[in-house]
């Protein structure tokens, strides 16, 4: 049973209407977009940094685990509430505090969604470069915690490349400000970097200074279809080798093409083995050269056909197709696991092929999309969680995918985070000294281990 005094204290801090304690309401905060779930003891909705500090102080004093939460769209279980925890939902800290178009900086609260930021800065001819497929709902705080990349990642990088500074409430209750807010020059020991991808284990971001980028004058979106995943993969490596850096290079396999087309009815090529979606931007002369090199690469890699989006509607349709992948696949089976493995670009083709072989070997459905430009693959494995044998097979297949990734010189998570899902793979990806160092860093920020415990860092076994 939850400590009644604790609840009273929390109510005093944030107000009655901003504390949820009933069994039913807690059920709706037990989960995120991953297959896991937990048992929080209370959910609070602070609206100021001071409130966050007061909540953290109580948790710290009473040794209660806490978890910051945004939209709860995490795919690896990062936003699954630890048992007995205080969930700090930041969805009501959702204001844009300032937009400075001259310095190209936006100051925002963590609960604002990525899309709302995009809409707000668009009128200045600016964008916030990270654009995860969940951007319509995922929050800036969550994007920072997971170091979200996105579809434009190949050209623009991930969240960590676009954060100028942060205000963070540490698990000890101290408030720090990182970064040099009025300049893009980074200090020697860059604290901002620690928080990007820390999965809510090091502190709670309460303000973020975002670096904005100009929207380029011209954009060309194109698609090409291939008779094999391998050809599509080599095409990507070729394009990059030619020195072209598209803003986007996405591969979708046949399963994904069909699922998305069922949902959107866009007339995608349903029998194509692979579809490559590309976008380039820049000044118009520059775009022309890039498009030519890409068309050459299509030819050398046996593309069956290609198309350039004729107008904005066609372009938006293609994007909608890509953004709907995660949800559209929900129809195939009641449960799924999405991986976000990364391999060097020249191994992309072989990795796509290996995953397809594994699907055959285990007799399971694996849908594949990839942010191919940065070697980030999203194999999605479908199963019925109510059938124990299926669960077992999926686990085995996942293990093999991860082993293959590491054998190809890759790593286990490009953007979804480690969360709960990939804890067991951490020792495969990092050696003991590295894991020990990570643990020491965690201890320095969170000596009592109350901040989103049980995520990201595995128990290190001594042998």
């Amino acid at each position: 049973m939850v400590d009644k005094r604790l609840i009273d204290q929390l109510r005093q801090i944030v107000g009655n209407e901003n504390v949820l304690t009933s069994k039913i309401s807690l059920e709706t905060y037990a989960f995120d977009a991953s297959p896991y779930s937990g048992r929080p003891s209370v959910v609070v909705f602070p609206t100021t940094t001071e409130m966050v500090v007061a909540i953290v102080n109580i948790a710290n004093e009473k040794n209660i685990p806490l978890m910051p939460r945004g939209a709860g769209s995490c795919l690896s279980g990062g936003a699954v509430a630890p048992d007995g925890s205080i969930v700090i939902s930041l969805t009501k800290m959702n204001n844009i505090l300032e937009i400075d178009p001259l310095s190209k900086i936006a100051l925002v609260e963590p609960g604002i969604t990525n899309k709302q930021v995009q809409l707000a800065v668009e009128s200045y001819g600016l964008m916030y470069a990270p654009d995860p497929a969940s951007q319509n709902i995922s929050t800036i705080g969550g994007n920072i915690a997971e170091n979200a990349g996105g579809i434009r990642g190949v050209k623009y990088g991930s969240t960590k490349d676009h954060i100028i500074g942060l205000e963070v409430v540490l698990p000890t209750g101290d408030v720090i400000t990182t970064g040099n807010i009025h300049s893009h020059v980074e200090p020697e020991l860059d604290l901002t970097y620690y928080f990007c991808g820390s999965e809510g284990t090091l502190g709670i971001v309460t303000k973020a200074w975002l670096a904005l980028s100009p929207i380029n004058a011209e954009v060309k979106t194109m698609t090409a279809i291939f008779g094999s995943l391998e050809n599509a993969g080599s095409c990507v490596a070729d394009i990059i080798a030619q020195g072209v850096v598209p803003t986007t290079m996405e591969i979708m396999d046949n399963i994904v093409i069909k699922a998305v087309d069922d949902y959107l009815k866009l007339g995608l090529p349903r029998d194509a083995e692979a579809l490559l979606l590309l976008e380039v931007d820049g000044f118009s002369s520059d775009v022309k050269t890039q498009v030519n090199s890409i068309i050459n690469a299509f030819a050398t890699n046996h593309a069956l056909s290609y198309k350039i989006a004729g107008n904005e509607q066609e372009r938006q349709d293609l994007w909608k197709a890509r953004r709907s992948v995660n949800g559209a696949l929900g129809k195939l089976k009641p449960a799924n696991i999405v991986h976000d493995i990364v391999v060097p670009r020249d191994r992309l083709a072989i990795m796509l092929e290996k995953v397809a072989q594994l699907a055959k070997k285990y007799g399971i459905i694996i849908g594949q999309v990839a942010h191919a430009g940065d070697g980030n693959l999203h194999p999605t494995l479908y199963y019925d969680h109510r059938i124990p044998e299926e669960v077992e097979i999926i686990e085995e297949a996942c293990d093999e995918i991860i082993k293959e990734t590491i054998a190809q010189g890759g790593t286990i998570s490009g953007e979804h985070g480690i969360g709960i899902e990939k804890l067991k793979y951490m020792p495969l990806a990092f050696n003991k000294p590295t894991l020990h160092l990570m643990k020491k860093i965690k201890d320095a920020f969170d000596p009592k281990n109350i901040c989103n415990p049980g995520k990201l860092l595995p128990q290190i076994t001594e042998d």
Partner: protein
Amino acid sequence: MKKDELLKLLMNCNRCGLCQEVCPTYKVSHIEANVARGRNRLIRLALENQLNLDKEPEVEKIINECLLCKACEDSCPSGVPTPEIIASIRTHYTNTKGLSLGKKIMYRGVFSKNRNISLIRNLAWIYQKCGINKLVKFTGIFNKTDEMLPNLPPKNVRSLLPALIKKLPNPKHRVAYFLGCSVNNFFSSIGVASIKVLQENNCEVLVPEVNCCGAPHHSAGDMEEFKRLAKNNLKMLNNLDVEAIVFDCSTCGSVIKDYKNLFSGDKEYENVAAQVAEKVQDISSYLVSIDFNKNMGTISKKVSYHDPCHGIRFLKVKDAPREILKSIPGLELIEMQEADMCCGGAGSYGIFNPKFSRDILARKIGNYKNTQSDILATSCPACAMQLSFGMKLHNLNCSVKHPVELLAQAYEIKSL
């Protein structure tokens, strides 16, 4: 719907959370229990016997707080039909517990019987005219709920029909006009305008003796009464020699179009319902399809348009009402943000869920205010009622009109 069918639909939700972007109750509360993904999770737990639906009043409250606006379903990549799922659970509640007394009086006692609606309407008209309302307002006992009713017209549309319906010399079209309860009793100016506009476009207009479409009963899960009303309406609408059955109420139109699903598998009514559904037309779409008369006078006003849920998501009407508005000389159409977000009216939702209803309304009115227009147009009397209430609550001196009212006015100005 059966339990395993429901579970199968619920399994399609992979908790991606995209419903957060469009769900009005989530937009104003930011709470997971108030969005499709949270509601679906609770229902799923119940169907998997981890929660007892009948012993958790909080779950029932959450189920009843859904507006059934369908925005989540339309943006759900897995196409989870949350409104249908919610409606099934409400039916379960109504079947096991019966309707609450308030709902029973309101739905079965009032909406089900044309005579009783008229009676109540007349009483309300007297209430508004004799000054008691000012006294009541002063005491504050209704917490402004009585202001939800629009200013009532002295007579309902049906009693005006003999004077309204003209015999046209050479009608080019023949249509049935569905006179719904709200338009008939509370917004007679819309009904009058619809008939006039249709006649102006050389349509011979029949007005069948229909009863309530059953929308309130359906949303409360009272399927028995809903079916009874639907059967009556189908009898009145079947075998009419008309090219279309025209609706100026998006709710009535979409409910009647959907009778075919209500009677799926029913030998007697399934075909009839499908035939009637074929003829259902939103009035703006119908006017556009017959290339309506563009000879009109000038209305120099700025107008913004609110999409009723039943218009944009059920009948799939988006461009037609805008086309009509833009065709009026002098009229400037200014789009508002979130034009297709529910207004929070949702039938009788506002009466049973005042907090949510008013928060959503405040957001809607805020979006409207930003357009700085003079008139808010919409194609549903239920929305019109809620939006007019919003104008009062937020002290805006702007009127709410159906596009056909403006069209009728433009025709009238021309003929002066």
